[in-house]
């Protein structure tokens, strides 16, 4: 049994079937990539996982616990963390504060009334925040206002925010979109590195096949709201169904 199980999930928007009986079984410690053409329902699926939208039918469970009916922050607190495609940061706060906040969330839960504590009183939190900034290479910019970062730096910060929480399951929405080849490779090695050291399970939505095939252990291919094929990268590469639906053979 996988750490994340999605069974028979449907979601309709008006008449449009955004998710059509989606099943997904993500094994602990693996990288599970979801690929598919635009509008295949990949982002909708991620949204359903973090309670950004509610599926019409079906079940979603994490470590055997149902995620349906939980609020977004509760899902996050049990270890499911999402990295957004367009950076969702705290633009008015410093880069360091941006990672301090998730570190506090991990450490003190979804709410704690501690108006008299000093921000840096908790060494563990402070250390963790500095550590993840070091991991993504943002340490030199830790005192900058996050909103003033370049787009690429914002995306790295976004990743650092997720890492600061030590999630069990990390949901990545096109982590390398819009990055240069060099940055993409850096991100791949970073993701590999944290996978090895921390054993985080990852679900990755990605268009870049280079990224997919260098990271993924398992690949699910979605088209029109449905998972059409699932398998190991080498199985996917040769699968005619996939080439039909999406790859068209040209990319491989």
């Amino acid at each position, binding site marked *: 049994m996988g750490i994340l199980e999605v069974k028979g999930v449907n979601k309709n928007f008006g008449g449009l079937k955004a998710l059509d009986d989606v099943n997904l079984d993500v094994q602990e410690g693996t990288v599970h990539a979801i690929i598919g053409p635009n509008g295949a329902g990949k982002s909708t699926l991620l949204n359903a996982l973090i309670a950004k939208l509610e599926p019409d039918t079906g079940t979603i469970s994490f470590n055997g616990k149902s995620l349906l009916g939980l609020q977004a*922050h509760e899902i996050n*607190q049990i270890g499911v*963390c*999402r990295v957004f495609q367009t950076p969702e940061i705290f633009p008015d706060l410093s880069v360091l*504060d941006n990672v301090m906040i998730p570190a506090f969330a991990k450490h003190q839960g979804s709410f*704690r009334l501690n108006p008299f504590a*000093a921000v840096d009183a908790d060494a563990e939190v402070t250390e963790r925040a500095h550590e993840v900034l070091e991991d993504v290479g943002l340490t030199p910019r830790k005192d*900058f206002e996050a909103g003033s970062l370049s787009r690429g730096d914002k995306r790295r910060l976004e990743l650092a925010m997720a890492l600061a*929480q030590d999630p069990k399951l990390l949901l990545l929405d096109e982590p390398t979109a819009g990055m240069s080849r060099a940055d993409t490779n850096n991100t791949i090695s970073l993701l590999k590195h944290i996978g090895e050291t921390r054993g985080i399970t990852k679900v990755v939505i990605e268009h870049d096949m280079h990224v997919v095939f260098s990271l993924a252990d398992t690949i699910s291919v979605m088209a029109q709201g449905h998972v059409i094929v699932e398998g190991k990268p080498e199985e996917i590469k040769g699968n005619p169904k996939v080439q039909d639906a999406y790859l068209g053979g040209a990319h491989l």
Partner: protein
Amino acid sequence: MFGLKQKDATLFLVVVAITALAPFLLNPFPENSELAQFNAGYPDLMQRFMIFGIFAIGFNILFGLTGYLSFGHAAFLGVGSYAGVWMLKLLSMNIIPAIIVSVVVAGVFSLIVGYISLRRSGIYFSILTLAFAQMSFALAYSVLTPITGGETGLQLALDDPRIFGVAQTADGSIPLTNFFGLEMRDGIEIAAGPWLFTLNVGYYLSAIVMLASFYVAIRIFRSPFGMMLKAVKSNQQRMNYTGINPKPYTLAAFVISGMYAGLAGGLMVAMDPLAGAERMQWTASGEVVLMTILGGAGTLVGPLLGAGVIKYFENIFSKINDNILYEWFSFMPGGLQDFFVTIIYPFIGKGWHLTLGIMFMLVVIFLPGGIVEGGKRLGRLFSRKKAEGGGSDATPAASPAE
């Protein structure tokens, strides 16, 4: 020092020093000079600086940190002052129980109002708080007259029970508010040459309470809790996906600021034991918004500065009349004198609200950071000049966050 970082501790000590010396600093002009009317060092006004300072510091914890714009905070101040007067009527003229009960009652009331209002955000939140405040105001004026004294307001009377004190003094008058026997009205006057300074018990007590409130606010600003409140303002949606529930944080900020308002209300009646419904009117809520914005929302000293400036204007500028103006411009030839007096007259005296409105608009338009931001810009201007003079170019490409 005091659990504060170097910078904050310095700031706090500066504020302590200024408040301690305020009776001298605010009376720079000799007693009988023409400029004496600009002196602000009399107890009544200085107490108001402290009281509205507390009110604005508290409001800033909500508005400055979380960005939630409440248009109903005067209701908490009003409720606090009613509660305070009742304690003076029922218990004793000692102000401590009155102030404590003011804070508690305002806290409970703000918990109810905040719990309901915070289910909406943005302009809807503002309207909800406004509606609650206007309701409280209307009720205090009408149905609740037995509790609030209606239009005349709630006052002390000779037949109040005051179970831990005396209903009336030996000579048959209402006893004065006191702090364990030390009367608020007491004080010493120091005459130094032509100058006259008043050191008043009520002022120093208000000052101590204000400094304590200010200290607490600094701690809140620098705590993880305060960081979360800033995050609410910056990107509330994101907090949910970071595992944080923003709602209790905002509610806590709302209640804390409501308690600050209650504290201000309690202190107000401790200095002058009566309470009226007009204190709860939405224009009074607007005033604390003005103070916070004018000084600098989200900054530590901003609200204090804003409260001081507005109360100073209200008291001093509104006293200037056209006779005084004619005296000022008496060095000019008649026509020019008339001209200047005519130009300036609408902005002073009864017209000080006009000045306030214009000042406020200018701040919102050109200086959204308020007085504090203005000071920073000036400071930057000077330091840049110095840097240029020294021939060094140390300005970073992008400005670091605070």
